[in-house]
């Protein structure tokens, strides 16, 4: 019981740090292509950790399945949308930022 709660705590704290990282990325990265990483990597990972933390707490299998399905959908949508937005930005003539 204690172990379960402790794991959940740890996972949630980790998730919080990923979400914060995503926020910093969104605010501080120099252009849209960099910021897309905040969306696709940090936040989706954070959500994944939240889902796992809640699955540990879940007492029925269909709750767990719903959580996994939610994460999966967000993951797929996030990846696709990042690709689409990047493509659109390139089409509109934005050039990716380079650190010179």
């Amino acid at each position, binding site marked *: 019981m204690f172990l379960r709660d402790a794991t959940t705590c740890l996972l949630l704290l980790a998730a919080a740090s990923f979400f914060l990282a995503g926020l910093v990325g969104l605010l501080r990265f120099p252009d849209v292509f960099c910021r897309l990483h905040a969306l696709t990597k940090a936040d989706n990972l954070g959500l994944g950790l939240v889902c796992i933390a809640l699955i540990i707490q879940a007492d029925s299998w269909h709750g767990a399945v719903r959580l996994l*399905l939610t994460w999966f*959908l967000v993951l*797929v*949508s996030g990846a*696709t949308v990042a*690709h*689409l937005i990047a*493509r659109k930005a390139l*089409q509109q003539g934005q050039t990716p930022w380079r650190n010179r």
Partner: protein
Amino acid sequence: MTLLFGHLIDLLLAVSLTVLAWRLLATSDLFKATVLFIAFGLLMALAWVRLDAPDLALAEAVIGAGITGVLLLTALRHLDSGARVARMSGRSGRRSLRVLLPALGIMPALLVLLCLSSPHIRSTAGLTASVIERLDQIGTDHPVTAVLLDFRAYDTLLETAVLLLAVVAVWSLHPVRPIFSPEPISPAQRGLLRLLLPVLIMTSLYLFWRGSHAPGGAFQAGALLAAGLLLLLLSEQRLPGRWSGMFLRLLLAGGFMIFLLVAAGALVGTGTLLDYPGGGASWLLLSIEAALSLSIAALLATAVIGGRPSDRSTEFPPRRKDPAGEEG
């Protein structure tokens, strides 16, 4: 601790809703306003959750984040070039209204004070108890669905009329134009559609089925289906010409007409409007709901497309022929 966090969430939500509304209405960049409005919808859904109204959160999620978003983003193409034409033609009165400014500043403050101090607020029990009490007389055990489809079914009938009316009004204005850009669709988008659509339909069925005993129901399921239709539309799927006539109109009006027929049948049979036989047999409610869901999906998607299908049975909505060319 728990209570404090709850309070802080409520406070933060309320403040950010207000600030967001102010920012989105103050900007003159319409695209920015639209994106802020989508974010506003997200926060509204969270507010409904905090207010313990998951039905409203569901509706706000589908309508605020999904359908209104598509509606506004699609409309922007026609509206955001140049503020001059997109401006109301009238000019009189606005200057004189400025004198009302102080009143507009003081009134909210007064109203807030009043509502928070009134002894009547929250002293009445409301109707929760009487709804719960009568739930076993009817064919559903989710209170909101019971109110929508039985206790205040007449409101719902008229609301469905408003939905149909909105489509009639939109269609009366102009023939449909091609609404999306003709450039090729990314294969990733097609892949996403193939993945999302089955899940979306399943979820919609699930919401529909849950509606009889938990948050969900005909409206949310229909709106979710409408979002699915819009996703199809965004991927260049169209209604073939032979279906964009009578079939489409029957689909749009079907839910309303069935509801109306049930109401009229009850009026002939029992002399009372919407008095379901057998105290609201669940199969009857279920079939009304099913027809309503389908119609609502079609109505919302059609209202977003904005424009009537042409008389010569062509695809609905039409394709844009020339990538660089004129609209219409």
